[in-house]
Every structure is written in structure tokens, then in C-alpha cells.
């Protein structure tokens, strides 16, 4: 599996953990359920790519451990 596909699968797995009964507003792109977001990631369109940016940005920040010093991460949010 190439890296892009691996990332796509990782993001889909993370989106599956979103709670039911919630929707995500992405501004002018609209509002989405988790199933709709997963489909956008699967077809790799603009909304799907945005979701990948969001998830990977968060995972990188988590890896760098910046969440545990709020002054640090509010000042330098990755």
C-alpha cells in the first residue's frame, strides 16, 4: 500500500470513531455526517483532502507532544 493510501485509510479509521448524531460544519462546503465525510475521503475530493489535513495536523501535533503545555501550543500551534 502506498503512503497516500495508508493515510487515507488512517483518516477513515479515525472518522469512524466520530460519535453518531453529530454533524460537522465546514463553512461554505456544507454540513456533513461522519458517513458523508468518510465517503469524501474515499473519493479524495476537496472535502476529503481537507479532512486529511485536519486529521494529520492533529496527529502530528499529538506526536510532538505540544498539547501538554498550553502556552506553548497556543503560541506556536504547529
Amino acid at each position, binding site marked *: 500500500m502506498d503512503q497516500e493510501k495508508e493515510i487515507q485509510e488512517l483518516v477513515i479509521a*479515525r472518522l469512524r*470513531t*466520530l*460519535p453518531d*448524531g*453529530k*454533524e*460537522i*460544519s*465546514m*463553512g*461554505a*462546503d456544507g*454540513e456533513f*455526517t461522519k458517513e458523508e465525510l468518510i465517503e469524501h475521503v474515499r473519493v479524495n475530493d476537496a472535502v476529503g483532502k*481537507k479532512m486529511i489535513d*485536519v*486529521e494529520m*495536523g*492533529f496527529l502530528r*501535533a499529538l506526536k510532538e507532544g505540544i*498539547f*501538554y503545555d*498550553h*502556552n506553548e*501550543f*497556543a*503560541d506556536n*500551534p*504547529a
Partner: protein
Amino acid sequence: MNLLITRPRYDYTTRYISAWAEPVVQSAKSKGHHVLDLQEERANRQEVESMLKKQTPEVVFFNGHGSEDTLTGHNGEVILRTGENEHLLSEKIIYALSCRSAKILGASSVKKGARAYIGYIEDFIFMYSSEKRTRPREDRTAALFLEPSNQVPLSLIKGNSASRAYRSAKNAYARGIQKLLTSRTSKEDTATIRYLFWDMKNLVCQGDGSARP
């Protein structure tokens, strides 16, 4: 101080952000400020341009959809567009709760005389409860996003500088994330962290950070 606020309301996103702007309106009024509150159909280009020219608000709080170079009002009407009318923001401090407008419109507004432009360089993303979408103010999931966002205008209303208002919101996002990470929270709330982090990192302050209303 004059505060101009736009509150379009025609889809779930604009319903939420406009409803959550109400505490800002109430806070400004309680402090004796004059609030020019353009709701629903009144959040249109003609009214906005007229208010910006005639009422000379010191602070402008835009709620609505946007893009890199536009801000929109009711039913998606473009109320500000780079190269057309951003000069009307001259001498003002702006907070745009909108997607991406800080990227081009914010920078251009500052070049054309806006004192400071606080906004998002990427999409503003938030989560809400489907069952609460007709009662946005009762939605505690949406509150996790919209309360930190409100720190910008609430801080400006108190007379703080643009930089301090911006920092206040960043810190509110950061505190919210830390609380969700370190305390016993539901799975539902924990799922919001990735989007709170996204909004926090994409909030920027352009122009003169020391500018006060």
C-alpha cells in the same frame, strides 16, 4: 463605541454562528456601546456598505460564509470582495467568523487601511448535535467552538487591543483542548479536539496588534 455585526441566517452554519453571536450583542449593549445589528435579510451588501460609510463603527464582527477573497451575508450574497470594497474597512478593527477570509481579504483590508483584521486563513470547522440544530444556543457541542471564538469580540468590547483579543481566543481554544485531553470527558466531546485545534491554529491577527477600539 459603535459595533457593526452581521448575522445572516439561512442554513445550519449561519443559524449557529448568528445565534451564538447574541452574547456579544448583549455584552456590547450592557456596556453602553451602540450596536448596529444586521440580521437575516439586512445582512446584505447595500446595508453593510451604508453602515460602514455613515456609522463609522470602530469594530466590525462579520458572521457568515467566506472564501479567500470574499465575505458573504444573507443567502450567500457577497458583501465584501477584495479589490471592490475592502477599503470601507479602513480605520476599523475586524473579526470575521468565516472561512479563509484572512488569507487574501484580511491582508488586503489591512493594506487599504484597516487597523487590524482577525480571522481564519482556513475553513472554520465546528461540530454540532443534529438534535439541537433548531436550538443552537442549547448545543453544548457547538459551544466548545463558538465560546472561544466569541472571546475575540468580547475582548474588543472591553477595550482590549486586537492582539489581546486574538490571544484571548487562542487561549480559550487551548484551554478547551487541554480540558478535553486531561479530564474525564465523553467520547463525543473528545472527538471535537481535532477541529478545535484546526480552528485555533488557523486564527490569525493581521495589522496593528496594538490597535484598540
